[in-house]
Structure formats: C-alpha cells, structure tokens
C-alpha cells in the first residue's frame, strides 16, 4: 500500500470517528457505493454527498457544541499568542507553546474520552472541564507576553538579564523549562479529565468542595504572586509601607489547610462505602491543589502580562519594586528613565516563572496529605477490607444517597 493510500485510509478512519457510532455504516455505505458511480463529475458529486452526510450527522452530535467551543477558544488563543515579533528564542518558545498546547488539549480530550468515558458528576464536572481548558488556553498568550519581555533587548544600557537571578534555573529561557511547563499542563488537563470522568466515580459534592477550596487557595496565592513573589515589598496603596509577608504566611497556611479542609468536608459528605470514601477524600484534596495552582498561575501570569502591556499599571504596582537580590540597582537606574522602565518590566516578568514551581509543588503537597488522610481513614475502618465493601459497578448513587 502506498503512502498516499495509507494517508487516505487514515483520513477516512479519522472522519468516520467524527460521526456517531450508529451512523458510521451509512457513511461507509456512501463511500462504498461511489465505486459504482461512473467516474468524473458524477462520482465527485456522489462523494460530495457523502461529505454532506458526514457534516450533517456530526453536527447533530451533542458533543459538537463543546467541540466548536474548544475550536473557537483554541483559535482565539492562537490569534492572541501567535508571536509577531522578530525571530528569537522567545518567538520559537511561543510558537511551540501555542501549537503544542492546542494539539495536546484536543488529543487529550479525545483520548481520555475513550479511556475514562464521558464527563460525570453533573454540571460541576462539565464546568470544571471547560474552566480548566479555558484557563490553560488563556495562560499561553499571557505567558508569551512574559517570554517576549524576558527575551527583549535591554534598554537604558543595563542588561538585567545578565543577573544570575534571571538567568538561573526556573527563570531563564531554557527549552527544558518549556518541556516541563508543557508536561505539567498536560498532566493537569489529564488529571482534571480523569477526576471529572464517569470512571472516577466522584460525587458531585466532592467536585464542588474541591473547586471551592481550590478557588480560595488560588486567590490567596494570586494575591501573593504578582504583588511580589519571594517576599519583595510591594507598594500597595492600601498597605502603605508594608510588604506582603502577612499574605505569604496566609498563603502558605492555605497551601496545607485548603486540601485538608476539602478532604475532611468530602469525607464527611460521603460516608459509605469505605473505599469509595477514600477515593472522594483523595480526589477532593488533589482537586483543591490543581484548581488552586492553576487559578493562581493563570490569574497571576495574566496580571503580569497586563502589567507588561500597561505602563500605568506596572508603574503603580512596581514603583519602588526592584529585583530581589540585585544590590545597588536604584543607584544604577537613577536618572535613566528608559532603564527604570525596563527594570520595572523585567522585575514584573521575573515574577511569572515561579508559578511553574507552584504548579508542580501544590499537587505534590496535596498528594502527600491525601496519602496520609487515606491511610488514617483506612485504619479507622477495622475489619472492613476496602475491596470487599465497594459495590460493583459504581458506588456513586449509594454514597450520595447516604450523604444527603
């Protein structure tokens, strides 16, 4: 079989997959019948009818709306994130980010539907899926704005990129960081698709608890993030002369408290059976960390991107803010407005990369807490082996019934 034939076969199989299972025979029938039609325009018209049938049947699927929504959001993200600046490292990174994320999200949605089944857990599951996909797509243009600033030529004669703080691990433009970022986003999307799938058998209440707790965690870390991650003082007009340390303390407490609270709440809502309860508890903690980290990352990076694009916002938030660890910077910048503006830009931009650390650390913390919690929960049910207490075929209804 030639390469062209193989490609045609693969394309036909791909097109058939768009059509609902019960209608695929009909599309195949039109294609098979085309061989009986005299070649030329008639056969072409016959095949065009087959394409019409595919379009008609595909558009009648319930998932078509979601597919179109994703396509529109992906197109918007590509339009917003596509780099227009001259070629450079940041441009290559931006292109790789945009293309990889869109392909990744689309592929994961299709693959996980086969592996995990469709969305379960009611409206919250669907909302979570849409929100997480929208968040990841929105993150790309914001991240690309930051990348462009980090890679931009310095102004005012001072190349702040030379400082080790910026060029060190986690801050510099390194492909390994990009690969890590894309892998983390893929894991996030996959984890959310799993947690919201029918196969995960999570109660809607568990999803709600995890989302709400994650929202609180995300907001706390968002407040800390763009206003001076790392403890540098921010000139907030409502807190004159104070730095963000109190917020940082609160955020660190919430990093542990939010997943624990979610796990406790999920465990109280879902009382039976034992193994199902452990699943709800672990999922609530993990979901809290995932949604919290993603919310903080997207809103934080988005705010930083807005600051980089809007000088008034940047100058307001970063008026006296300077790069942590760069001694004597104010002296260097004195009387050099271009260098000062550049320092504000690069200071804001360097606050973005640590969000990747948040995305990695938060789920690890939640998994550790969830592991401890599930061990405690398993030990508290003496004489009831978890595997024997689960109702075959799903315990969601019984668990929810007992919880409500």
């Amino acid at each position, binding site marked *: 079989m030639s390469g062209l034939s193989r490609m045609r076969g693969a394309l036909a199989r791909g097109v058939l997959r768009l059509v609902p299972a019960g209608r695929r025979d009909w599309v195949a029938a039109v294609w098979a019948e085309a061989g009986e039609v005299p070649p030329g325009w008639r056969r072409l018209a*016959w095949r065009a*009818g087959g394409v019409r049938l595919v379009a008609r049947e595909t558009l009648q699927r319930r998932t078509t709306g979601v597919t179109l929504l994703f396509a529109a959001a992906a197109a918007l993200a590509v339009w917003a994130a596509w780099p227009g600046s001259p070629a450079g490292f940041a441009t290559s990174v931006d292109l790789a980010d945009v293309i990889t994320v869109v392909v990744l999200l689309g592929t994961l949605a299709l693959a996980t539907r086969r592996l995990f089944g469709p969305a379960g857990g009611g409206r919250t599951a669907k909302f979570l899926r849409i929100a997480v996909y929208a968040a990841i797509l929105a993150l790309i243009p914001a991240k690309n704005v930051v990348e462009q600033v980090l890679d931009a030529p310095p102004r005012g004669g001072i190349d702040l990129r030379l400082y080790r703080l910026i060029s060190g691990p986690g801050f510099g433009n390194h492909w390994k960081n990009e690969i890590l970022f894309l892998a983390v986003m893929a894991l996030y999307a996959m984890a959310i698709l799993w947690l919201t799938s029918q196969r995960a058998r999570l109660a809607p209440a568990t999803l709600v608890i995890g989302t709400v707790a994650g929202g609180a965690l995300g907001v706390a870390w968002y407040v800390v993030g763009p206003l001076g991650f790392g403890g540098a003082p921010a000139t907030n007009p409502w807190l004159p002369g104070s730095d963000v340390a109190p917020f940082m303390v609160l955020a660190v407490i919430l990093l542990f408290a939010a997943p624990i609270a979610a796990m406790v709440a999920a465990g109280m809502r879902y009382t039976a059976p034992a193994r199902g309860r452990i699943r709800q508890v672990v999922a609530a903690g993990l979901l809290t960390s995932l949604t919290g980290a993603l919310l903080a990352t997207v809103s934080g990076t988005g705010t930083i991107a807005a600051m980089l694009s809007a000088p008034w916002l940047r100058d307001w938030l970063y008026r006296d803010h300077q790069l942590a660890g760069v001694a004597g910077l104010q002296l260097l910048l004195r009387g050099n407005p271009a260098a000062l503006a550049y320092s504000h830009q690069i200071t804001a931009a360097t606050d973005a990369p640590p969000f990747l650390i948040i995305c990695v650390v938060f789920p690890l913390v939640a998994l550790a807490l969830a592991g401890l919690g599930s061990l405690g929960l398993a030990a508290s049910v003496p004489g009831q082996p978890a595997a024997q207490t689960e109702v075959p075929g799903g315990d969601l209804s019984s668990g929810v019934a007992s919880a409500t």
Partner: protein
Amino acid sequence: MATRSRLSAQTLSVLAALREEPSQWHHGYALAKLTGLKSGTLYPILIRLADRGLVEACWQDEPQPGRPRRHLYRVTADGLAAAAPVAQAESARPGTRVTPTGRAVVRRALS
C-alpha cells in the same frame, strides 16, 4: 410513533421506488437513479426511514472481487403498509406524482 412525521415528496419517492420490488434488496446508486436524488439527499432519507423501521439495511454478504461490500436496502412490512396509501393515490390518478392528499395519508400512517 409519538412525534409528528414530516414526509417530503422526496421521501415518498424513495418509498415508492423500494415498493416497486419489495422483496428485492436495492443498492444506493440504483435508488438514486430511480428517484433522481443526489447521495447527500438520498442517504439521510434512508437513515430516517430505517430509524422508523420502514426500511431495513444490511451489508452485502459476498462482494464482487476487487470491490467493497455494498449496503443494501429493502422496504419492510411497515414500510409497505405506510406506502400503500401513496400507491392507491397514484393508481387512482395514473400519470401523476404523489398528491398532497396521498402525502397527508402517509403522514398520518407514519405519525
């Protein structure tokens, strides 16, 4: 069927074509030639008729060498019963196509 059916003249023409030789299996292209319908119109009609149990469909058992298996269609007993008023309307007025009255009768039979 509880839902109200909407049978177009094209749908009725497909039923009429199948009714000509009710025991025979028909190919899509043959039906297209008999009815003058394009594939993009014919197949959605066949799908609707099959969904309502008026037409049955199957794949050819023994395809011709070098050719793909073909999909075959045959009118069912329900389909014949549904098409009977159309046949009566046509025989009462030879030389004419399906009348609005006959169409209404078929609609009632299918609804």
